[in-house]
């Protein structure tokens, strides 16, 4: 505070240069940030990945999983396919249970219920099946999870039956081994992420989303603290490559050691492995090509992470302090060399044996990173400056605005002594506006508003109701605020609204910093959109162009144009009318999904937009329409 109130500040040569040219500096910082961010993908900014945790000892033992003892993969797969065909839309629970029991695992099942939050009296039920391999001599205090989402043949997602057959074979092999020090849980979940979330909540006896939405039920068998989890999705017997997926809920990432472990063991078993479906290494690429590949890989990771939606079932583990990744095996189409499921099985065997070695839970290596390639990483120390530059631009703007004002104010003081600070800054009006916009944000939280919207428009589908509700409300606010500001606050005319402006800038800056601490990608992308228009605003007499620009970045507008871009990229061939309907529909669906994600999983992407972006946006919008008069000195001149 000393910096902002000390009257002597703002008279140094450097400060006056900053103050005079702050807009240029801000733009310069913005450009520097973007350039720096793009540079991150270059090899000089990223470094080679390495193992921090020595206890993992990856690949020290030879993979021993084979088809010779017990039932082979083919037997399991044939049996499973026949069973799956019999149950077109359901999970063959009793088959899975008896299969696990025959493999001599401690077998349990787990029931859960979802009370759909946006429609009254709508319930979905599901059932997970899991078997626990009890490690000999250990007291079941630690465990590792191998999970597979079960997909019935009618599912829209690619099937996971080959993965399940691999799991059976692995379980059969693991059961014969003496060396386990941690229990191994083989988990088959239902309903994609919902089943996983329910199982995890039940395992930890908590509720992560809104209370009463997901009734996670009770588990009767546990195996201590889960140290790591691997989620397996293998779509075919002949695999083209294994894609290793990381992004978790709210952009949380697994420990880099686990990711490296997967890549390293794939390498060892000569399994083609990718990150975001891009091969690692620079073999056969020139420098420029490598850079572009790295950049696009990194950008796709940022995009995935920014949504805050996990890209596999592994993403739900992270919240519980469990490091997890998904190995997704894509089908090899056509002829040529393929990866056999047995190779993938050996990768998993190697990973489990490494994880079995762990003495301590994962605590070394990185938890915050960006990956431009399978074998390179950008550490937090390098990517954070990009965001700091953006937020720094906001802070510089705020600082300069305040200094400018205080020097003007001193000038004004000498002209008219009677004006006190409180009159000059209009603290009352400013706090009223700030408070009002935040209360508005609170009301629009997913726990309150959506249920009313869907209740009110009972006859139309949920996503349309939500879009209409939020859209209408936003439209009203956008229209009513200028009128309200102009008409009602005419008596509070001042030369500028510097306090409101500074508060808005600082709140946006601090909010973005906080968000990026948890989810850098989300914070950075939001900053990219909001920082530039925020820099162009001024504390009085905003130009019509700035107002229009600001209108464009309204959270709802942003949602729609982002959806428009994505839709255009996905379906470039659509007619304009079809295209627009599709964009609107998709936006609505995104809102509905986001709301449900928030209520069920505790995803806070929606909350951020409603609690941070919307209030700040509205405050800025008010600022642009607050009545001002020209400063005294100009008048006298």
């Amino acid at each position, binding site marked *: 505070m000393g910096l902002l109130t000390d009257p002597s500040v703002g008279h140094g040569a450097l400060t006056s240069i900053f103050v005079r040219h702050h807009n240029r500096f801000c733009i310069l910082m913005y450009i520097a940030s973007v350039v720096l961010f793009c540079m991150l993908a270059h090899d000089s900014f990223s470094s080679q990945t390495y193992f921090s945790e020595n206890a993992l000892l990856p690949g020290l033992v030879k993979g021993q999983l084979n088809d010779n003892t017990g039932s082979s993969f083919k037997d399991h797969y044939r049996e499973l396919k026949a069973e799956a065909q019999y149950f077109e839309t359901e999970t063959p629970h009793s088959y899975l249970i008896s299969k696990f029991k025959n493999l001599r695992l401690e077998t349990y099942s787990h029931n859960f219920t979802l009370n759909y939050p946006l429609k009254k009296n709508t319930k979905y039920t599901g059932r997970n099946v899991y078997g626990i391999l009890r490690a000999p001599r250990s*007291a079941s205090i630690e465990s590792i999870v191998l999970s597979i989402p079960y997909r019935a043949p009618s599912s829209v997602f690619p099937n996971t039956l080959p993965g399940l057959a691999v799991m059976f074979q692995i379980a059969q092999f693991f059961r014969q081994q003496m060396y386990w020090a941690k229990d191994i849980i083989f988990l088959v979940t239902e309903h994609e992420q919902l089943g996983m979330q329910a199982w995890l909540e039940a395992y930890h006896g908590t509720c992560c989303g809104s209370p009463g939405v997901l009734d996670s039920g009770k588990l009767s068998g546990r195996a201590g*603290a889960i140290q790591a989890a691997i989620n397996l999705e293998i779509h075919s017997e002949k695999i083209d490559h294994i894609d290793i997926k990381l992004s978790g809920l709210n952009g949380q990432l697994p420990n880099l050691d686990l990711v490296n472990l997967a890549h390293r063991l794939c390498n060892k078993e000569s399994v083609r492995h990718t990150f975001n479906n891009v091969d690692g290494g620079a073999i056969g690429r020139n420098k420029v090509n490598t850079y572009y590949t790295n950049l696009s890989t990194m950008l796709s990771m940022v995009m995935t992470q920014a949504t805050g939606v996990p890209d596999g079932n592994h993403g739900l583990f992270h919240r519980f302090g469990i490091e997890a990744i998904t190995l997704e095996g894509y089908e090899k189409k056509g002829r040529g060399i393929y990866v056999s499921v047995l190779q993938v099985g050996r990768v998993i065997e190697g990973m489990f044996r490494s994880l079995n070695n762990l003495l301590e839970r994962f605590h070394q290596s990185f938890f915050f990173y960006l990956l431009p390639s399978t074998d390179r990483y950008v550490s937090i120390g390098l990517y954070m400056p990009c965001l700091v530059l953006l937020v720094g631009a906001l802070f510089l703007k705020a600082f300069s605005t305040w200094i400018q004002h205080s020097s003007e104010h001193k000038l004004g003081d000498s002209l008219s002594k009677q004006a006190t600070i409180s009159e000059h800054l209009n603290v009352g009006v400013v706090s009223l506006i700030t408070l009002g916009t935040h209360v508005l944000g609170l009301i629009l939280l997913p726990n309150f508003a959506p249920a009313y919207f869907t209740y009110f428009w009972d006859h139309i589908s949920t996503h349309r109701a939500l879009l209409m509700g939020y859209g209408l409300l936003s439209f009203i606010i956008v229209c009513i605020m200028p009128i309200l500001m102009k008409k009602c606050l005419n008596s509070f005319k001042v030369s500028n609204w510097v306090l409101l402006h500074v508060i808005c800038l600082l709140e946006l800056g601090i909010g973005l910093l906080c968000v990026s601490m948890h989810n850098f990608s989300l914070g950075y992308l939001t900053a990219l959109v909001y920082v530039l228009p925020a820099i162009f605003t001024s504390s009085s007499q905003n130009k019509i162009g700035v107002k229009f620009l600001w209108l464009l970045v309204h959270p709802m507008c942003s949602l729609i144009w982002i959806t428009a871009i994505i839709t255009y990229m996905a379906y470039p061939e659509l007619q304009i009318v079809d295209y627009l309907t599709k964009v609107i529909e998709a936006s609505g669906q995104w809102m509905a999904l986001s709301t449900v994600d928030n209520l069920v999983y505790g995803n806070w992407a929606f909350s951020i937009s409603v609690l941070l972006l919307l209030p700040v946006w509205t405050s800025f919008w008010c600022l642009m329409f607050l009545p001002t008069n020209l400063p005294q000195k100009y008048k006298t001149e």
Partner: protein
Amino acid sequence: MYDKFLWIFLAFTGYVRSESYSEELFIKPLATGYVYSFFQFTIVREDNAFRHSSLFPHSLGDIINRFHVDELNVDLTSGLWRHKSWGYPAVDAPSGAEISARFHNDTIDVNKNWYGLTNALSGLLCTSLNFINSANSYESSADRVYRYSNLPRENVCTENLTPWKKLLPCDSTRGLSSLLNSGHVHNANYHSLGIHFRPLCNAGKCKYELRQTVSLVYDSTFISLNNNYDWSLRKMFGTGLFKTCPLADFSKLYIDTSSNSSVPYLLSQEPDYFLKDNIAVYNLISIFHLSAVVPRPKIAVSELRPLLYTDRFITGFGQEYGGLVTRIYNEHRLPVTAKVIENIPWFLPIYYHTLIVSSNGVRVNPKALIYKPGKGRIRIYYLEIVLELAPRSVTEISVQFDYVFLKWQEYPPDANHGFYIGSAIVEVTIPRHATSLTFDKSFIADNLNSSEADYLICLKTENFIITLPTPDFSMPYNVICLACTVVALAFGPIHNITTKRLKLTTAKYVPGLASILQKLYMWVENIALSKKINKVGNSAAVKVYAPEELSYHPTLGHVSEEFMNNQVYISYTKKWPLLKH
């Protein structure tokens, strides 16, 4: 002569008749292909003075005598007994080390004796029982002279088995204890060593019983060569029985064949007789071997589901809130009274107001409740709850706790592994007929013929680990390295500046061979260069070393020209060839 010896021998044995010794082995095939074997070596004697003994281990007798111990139970266990699928063991012990003792009623300083006892036993059994202090032991609410403690982190291994075997009269050379080969014992899925000493009083007359027990559970996956649930003595213990212990009154092998009705199995030898129709008994006299052929059932056997079993886990994630839940499942058709004892270490402070006891989801009031709050680094949180478990119900006891910050020396090695929390104890009295086997008498056969109505079972729940907020222990190391480097770098200049005075002297130049050669080289080079410069016509390069420009010395500051001249000479000679290129 021989007569005399005989008389001495007889007198000796006559004196010793006050002690008796027996060896028993009980084998029970459990569900889902596990085999439980329980060894019991029992010594019963008539006095507890231990001035002389021929069978009772002297080292243990001394300890018992010295610390006025009335009753002692020590269990060293590796693995977890799975009540849900294995039923009840003969001796229920939690994973790790567990010790409880009751001292004589007239003992004045019980704590002193308790710490003395644990220290002595830790030496005797090579365990870490010496880590027992007030912060991990408790006294019973009802009994002033009773102490209990468990060390869940204790690893049980060969070094405990060897001293344990040395307490036996026949050591491990003869008798059933020759079956206990450490390689095979520690290959079992569960193994537990026990020492149990107690008085058996009947109408004022007391006998003293010492039972040394071993519980082993083998998985037929590892001991059976085929896919069946076969087992044999050799497969389990690596050897058959060659010699019985001559000091034992009897050596017997019992085999529970009650699973015969569902899964028929074949024993390689006819038993000597049957007890209660389904316990095959062998009198072990000489060399003995036994194997069993048990076909694997076609349909996977479902779990046993004993009358009562427990489940314990922590709830919550992160390090903000945590909860501890103990569930007790009562499958009996009658209500059962249970006593639950939770001993929670001081670093897991529980909130008493969050204690909820519910039965099938409905909150119930316990019959009795004793709570002794813990104290940081001194006392555990002790919670004793007496409950009536409704028939066919699940009773849940939950309490919230906090994660505390510890002092940095209080973290164990491998701090990120987590902190072990020991098991809770559930004591239940059940009707004797409700469980197939009981083990509270001196000899196994006595249990089978017992006519008592009740049987006390003591369930120990699972241990678990929690992660307390753990600092980055490598950070101080990094800081030390960095600080030391900085200090080392700074020390030299600072030491020089503070202890030495700068004095201007003219450099006395003593030419050595090397410098003469160098000078020669310079001279030749200078000539060559000057020729070159002359040719090019550029003399500016020489100007760099004009003395007025160099009178500012980089480290010494402004110095006199005289000094600089000498310096210039040196730098000139050294740097010239470098600068040239």
